[in-house]
């Protein structure tokens, strides 16, 4: 059974926050599109997409307020240029720009203790093992 207080102390809290924001934005974006999740959510889960988007937007604003000023500034800078502020790194490749990331960056087991970004596209990165 997973601990009720999951061990997340090895992850940079701002990265955790950015990832939460990213996931909420994904949900919000998907509910906007007619070919996105809105029809499925409406039909099978009785969700009102507009209402759900409003709730998500409120939560997104709340979490954005919790970003450190420097991180917030970078977040705001990246967001208009890229759909995703945090991107996964899979098999050493940044999925924001599809360029290989330096082995030293992704190979460190404690990689999530620091807030890192792709040197090529500037997106915050999260290494998916």
């Amino acid at each position, binding site marked *: *059974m*997973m*601990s*009720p207080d*999951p*061990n*997340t102390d*090895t*992850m940079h809290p701002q990265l*955790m926050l950015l*990832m*939460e924001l*990213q*996931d*909420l934005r*994904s*949900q919000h974006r*998907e509910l906007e599109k007619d070919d*996105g*999740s809105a029809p*499925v959510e409406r039909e*099978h*889960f*009785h*969700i009102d997409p507009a209402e*759900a988007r409003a*709730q*998500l937007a409120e*939560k997104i604003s709340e979490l954005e307020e919790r970003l450190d000023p420097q991180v917030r500034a970078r977040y705001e800078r990246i967001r208009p240029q890229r759909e*995703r502020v*945090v991107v*996964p790194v*899979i098999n050493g490749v940044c*999925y924001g720009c599809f360029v290989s990331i330096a082995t030293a960056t992704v190979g460190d087991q404690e990689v*999530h203790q620091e807030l890192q970004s792709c040197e090529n596209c500037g997106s915050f990165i*999260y290494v*998916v*093992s």
Partner: protein
Amino acid sequence: MKLRKLFTTDSVELNLESETKDEVLKELIQLLGLDDKSEAILFKTLKRRENLGSTGIGKGIAIPHCRSLVVNELRLAYGRKPEGIDFQAIDDEPVHNLFLIVAPPLEVSNQYLPVLGKIAQFAKDPDIPEKLQEIDEATQFLDLLEERAP
């Protein structure tokens, strides 16, 4: 895409132990075999989705689902709670069968929404809940998917 191909016996648990909605979400997440950090992030994202409205769609079925950075491909798990659990389902009845669906934000094959719809259709089939209760082994669950969700 056949639903059968998206599950393995490791991602099926026929006797969930949890007694609360939060615990059962965590137990389902564990079936995906992620690391602790990823489990914690995924739990938060699923909870946020549940806050929009329960994914308990009635007739003892729940389909918690979300997109999350913590997976790099579409991942599914199935859990059964024979005694039922309060999931704040839309019919206020206990939930016995839970299908977890997690997709990455970027998905080349775009399977997430079709699979979500397909699982919902499968689970709503009138005799499926009863058939799910009769299953004794994970392989029988996979056989049922093969037979009823080709």
